[in-house]
């Protein structure tokens, strides 16, 4: 089966600094693929390239066979490729419901006149949108918090709101940037269930995550990055025993890595 997302020899340089040297991998439709690697390996940069927030210095990204080189982030979202963010994942000053409603803003596309006049069609659309938002909030298990400000939720709950936002655009593929950071063990466990449920509904998942047990449990396949380069690719079992991966995380270069991070910071 052909890939839903292809990252083809992508390189990214900021001035003299190489964030990604040469990244090359495919994501197959319907799989859960994890992108792992030590801090500063270029994972978030890779995400920003795949979703159009950065344009790669070399190489290209294809989503469903379409080159994203000239596609803006909002257009990529509309193609069905959604993402979550590591740090600012919610509209903090709005309620959870309003957050998801913002995520749903592209549904229906009423005419300018309908925006100004409360026509029956506009009112019906509004009602439908709200119902849809409530269903999504219910799915991620935040119904009880629907009317609280997203910024007042716990960190883990905010990640769920971010996830709900991404779901709101009904993506065919979802990029999750450290979705369980800030979640406790039981929250993480139920999130794993949620991710599986979304995948079973036909959404391909690409995951960046530091929680290794979670990654090992949920992934079908894993690719490992270090120094902006792909160092290993395989099933969780294969990755667990890969010499290059072990060295990247624990090995002799660990001290050197710290230095490099300090220099990049």
């Amino acid at each position: 089966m052909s890939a839903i997302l292809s990252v083809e020899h992508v390189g990214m340089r900021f001035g003299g600094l190489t964030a990604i040297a040469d990244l090359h991998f495919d994501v197959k439709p319907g799989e859960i693929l994890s992108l792992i690697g030590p801090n500063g390996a270029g994972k978030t940069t890779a995400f920003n390239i795949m979703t159009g927030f950065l344009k790669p210095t070399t190489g290209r990204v294809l989503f469903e066979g379409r080159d994203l080189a000239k596609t803006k982030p909002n257009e990529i979202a509309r193609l069905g490729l959604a993402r979550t963010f590591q740090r600012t994942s919610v509209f903090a000053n709005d309620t959870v419901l309003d957050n998801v409603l913002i995520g749903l803003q592209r549904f229906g596309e009423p005419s300018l006149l309908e925006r100004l006049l409360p026509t029956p069609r506009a009112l019906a659309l509004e009602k439908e949108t709200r119902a849809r938002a409530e269903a999504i909030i219910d799915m991620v298990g935040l119904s009880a918090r629907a009317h609280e400000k997203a910024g007042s939720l716990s960190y883990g709950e905010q990640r769920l709101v971010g996830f709900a936002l991404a779901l709101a655009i009904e993506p065919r593929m979802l990029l999750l940037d450290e979705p369980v950071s800030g979640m406790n063990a039981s929250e993480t466990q139920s999130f794993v269930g949620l991710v599986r449920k979304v995948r079973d509904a036909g959404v391909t998942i690409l995951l960046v995550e530091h929680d290794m047990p979670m990654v090992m449990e949920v992934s079908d396949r894993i690719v490992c990055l270090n120094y902006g380069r792909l160092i290993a690719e395989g099933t969780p079992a294969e990755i667990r025993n890969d010499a290059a991966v072990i060295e990247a995380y624990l090995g002799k270069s660990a001290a050197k890595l710290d230095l490099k991070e300090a220099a990049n910071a």
Partner: protein
Amino acid sequence: MTRLIAPLFLVVFALVPLWLNDPYLMNALIITGIFTICAMSLNLLLGYTGQLSLGHVAFFGIGAYVSALTALGFDVSLPFGLRITHEGGSPLLGFVLAILITGVTGYLIGRLSFRVRGAYFVIVTISFAEVVRLVALNWVELTQGPLALTSIPNMTLPLPGLGDLTLRTKMQNYYLVLGVAVLSYLVVARLVASRFGRAMRGLKENESLALSLGVNATRTLTIAATVSAAMAGAAGSLYAHYIRIIDPDVFLFSYTVTMVIMVVAGGKGSLAGPLVGGLIFGLLPVALRPVMAPEAQWIVYGGILIAILFVMPNGIVPALANLTARRRPASLTKTPETPAEAGAQS
């Protein structure tokens, strides 16, 4: 609570001319109303998209000139031997043209400056206003330059079955301004409550996140700029047909500043904010005039602007809303400062 402010304003101000006979105060109220419309239009941009138009007076002034020239007529020669002659027509047509032309102008300015985010829109609008002022000053054939356009006719409304009604009295103009203000309020209220409003709010709060959800930033911001400019243009038209004389001073930066203070003090991003701010800063000059020189008044306004931003950065109306909300037994959830704290909490 703050939902009641707008209807309350409408009822109170609809009744004012019935008991107020003082022409000076009526005049102050009409001008206040016109600037409140400007403040509402500015709020659509500053309050809901976070983009500040510091050349808002340009749209106001263009609206005034377009409307006045449509009513008065003009005869200008252009390069290449072209010549445009317009006989003069109905002020109502001027009002409509003022809205259309300022809308298109706002659209163009938006398309141009929203290509990049940051302070660009502010800077483009402020220098645009300066250029329009220069044009008004130098294109004497069209605008009479510093000599001003005079004898602009009052607004005329065609009433079905009754013929044309020319609004000559203060009371008539008062109700005209009130009517346009109500319409403007409703337009902003509907826009903000719609999907379009959600897109604006998303962009303002977290642009990257909004983009990732498919919000078209340029388009959303440009539409907001278009509507906002058209509304300021409508206010400019009202001004021209009420005051009946306009000169390049309608493009003064201090008018923009007045609008900004009205919005910021009243509460940007709240529907009632510009109404409250507009009323306060529309009538404050009336109160201060006997006791202070204009320069001293401006020092006071500048001080109030700073004080509001320090004490209640969201403005008066949201501050009031917070106050009333706090009295209710709120289900306060503590915001975790760190992920660790969040973990410990749950």
